[in-house]
């Protein structure tokens, strides 16, 4: 792969991640779920075990596509009390690294900072998000999304009530 190819690949991945971030900040959660493949997984490990494996360890979130759709529906419901009224969020995605895997998928990692404001409080969720992205026609699909928080605990937030 030439340098230009690599830059172009990273630019296309960044564009995808920026689009994802905008969907989340705009609370267009159903469209966000549509970015995922049907066999996808969304994992958020516990803060005291960033390397946690959801098949063995306690994590915060381990969604398959069914629960991910339910999560989006729940967050859109007025009975999702922690997010009603909704918080304001602003996402910053940077330090994007892209590698092609042997089976032609993309292994992506990005630094992510999400500021959340609600009820007079403002606090950041900070961490790294690791993705496996799959090419689907001209587009990309998320096959795996693992959001690892750098926070020591959720004392500022009380919950992971938004999508990190």
């Amino acid at each position, binding site marked *: 792969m030439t340098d230009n190819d690599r830059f172009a690949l990273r630019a296309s991945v960044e564009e995808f991640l920026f689009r994802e971030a905008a969907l989340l900040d705009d609370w267009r959660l159903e469209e966000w779920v549509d970015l995922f493949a049907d066999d996808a997984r969304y994992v958020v490990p516990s803060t005291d075990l960033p390397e*946690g494996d959801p098949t063995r360890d306690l994590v*915060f979130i381990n969604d398959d596509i069914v629960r991910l759709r*339910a999560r989006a529906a729940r967050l859109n419901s007025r009975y999702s*009390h922690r997010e009603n009224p909704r918080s304001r969020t602003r996402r910053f995605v940077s330090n994007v690294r892209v590698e092609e895997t042997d089976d032609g998928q993309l292994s992506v990692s990005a630094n992510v900072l999400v500021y959340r404001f609600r009820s007079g409080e403002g606090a950041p969720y900070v961490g790294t998000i690791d993705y496996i992205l799959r090419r689907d026609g001209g587009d990309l699909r998320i096959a795996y999304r693992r959001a690892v928080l750098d926070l020591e605990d959720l004392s500022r937030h*009380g919950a992971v009530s938004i999508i990190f």
Partner: protein
Amino acid sequence: MDIQDLIIDDRDRGIFRVHRSCMTSFDLFQRERELIFNRCWIYLGHESEVENPGDYRRRTVAGRPLFFIRSKDGRVRVFLNSCPHRGAMVCRRGAGNAKTLQCFYHAWTFSTSGELIGVPGREAYGPRFKRSEHGLKEPPRVESYRGFYFVSFNPKVEDLVTYLAGARDYLDLVVDQAEEGMRVISGSNKYAISANWKLLAENSLDGYHLIPTHRTYVDYMSGLGTDDSGDTLASRPPGAGRALGNGHCVSENISRNGRPIARWHPVFGEEAKPRIARVRRRLVKKYGEERAYRMADTSRNLLIYPNLLIMDFVAISIRYIEPLAPDRMDVTAWHLVPREESGAALATRLDSYLTFLGPGGFATPDDVEVLESCQTGFRASGNAWSDISRGMLKADPGTADELQMRGFWRQWHANMQGLSQANAQDGQPGGGER
């Protein structure tokens, strides 16, 4: 306001009110520290968290930095996390394994059983300096029951089993589900709530709030299907709220959602059916039909007074509440699983846990929100009362009634007046004994 007036407990007329200063007053918060947290047994951790010699875990328990470690002789020991020399914390990581423990200030070194074994420049101390007088200090009392370790800062506290009173049988109902004992898996959910700690104790036992507060969870689960077949649950008595003595309380419910141990639910998938049936047979064989029914088909939210909850419903969560201020608490939750479970069985259980429980689950965030909302609401009036009288005149209160919460509050009120025991049941005269 006099302490004795903080709760109105009129058992004849069915009136139970808690003055909201109980959740906001700094003086009462300090009094709780002294009369409750420095006198009761307080949960520390589970033996499985320190499986091997040298394994240690750091904890803050009722405001005190402690750590527990499995010594070379296999015993679990608990130490104050403060160097006997000048006070620095000896254990500076949340968890790990150590052959010896060295304070980083002057490099005093301790064995895993707490003896001082190394003092740089030992000869500069006089002949009266005895290493045996400078070992790591232990809390006045440490005892365990079936793997659960508790500490007490009250040297005269009754033994742990006596203290557990009626809660002991409920702990047995949890631990006996496992064939090879229970273990805490790696990873803990740590979060904080800007609310008084007693609100979470109450909320964890409150069956009345389930439908309105957790509607999205209830809808999600019923959308996945229900299974009322098999045992005819309809013929069983409905759930109950109980006060178990010494402030311990339980909300015991028939579980229409699945229970990973031995009650199948569509969410677990067809393939889980044979395994769950097998476990059910094992429980019946070992404990008899009735007790197996209670382990498999009923769930229990158990409060071990004052600040530990064993939430045994969609999975088993150990929830520890650490009060920080009148309007602030830390919460840590661990997941307790049967040692014999691995692979698909463990995956089912982990999945079931996360649906409801934890700060990323479909229900816990709503509880965080509602408790903070209460705490903010308390500011509206300096003289308001919370009503906890539901079902007070009933002969057999259910889980949506509030006997289990009144039991907690009655013990709290007795302790705050310097009494050791409350008459926790409805329909009995109030007051307490010294």
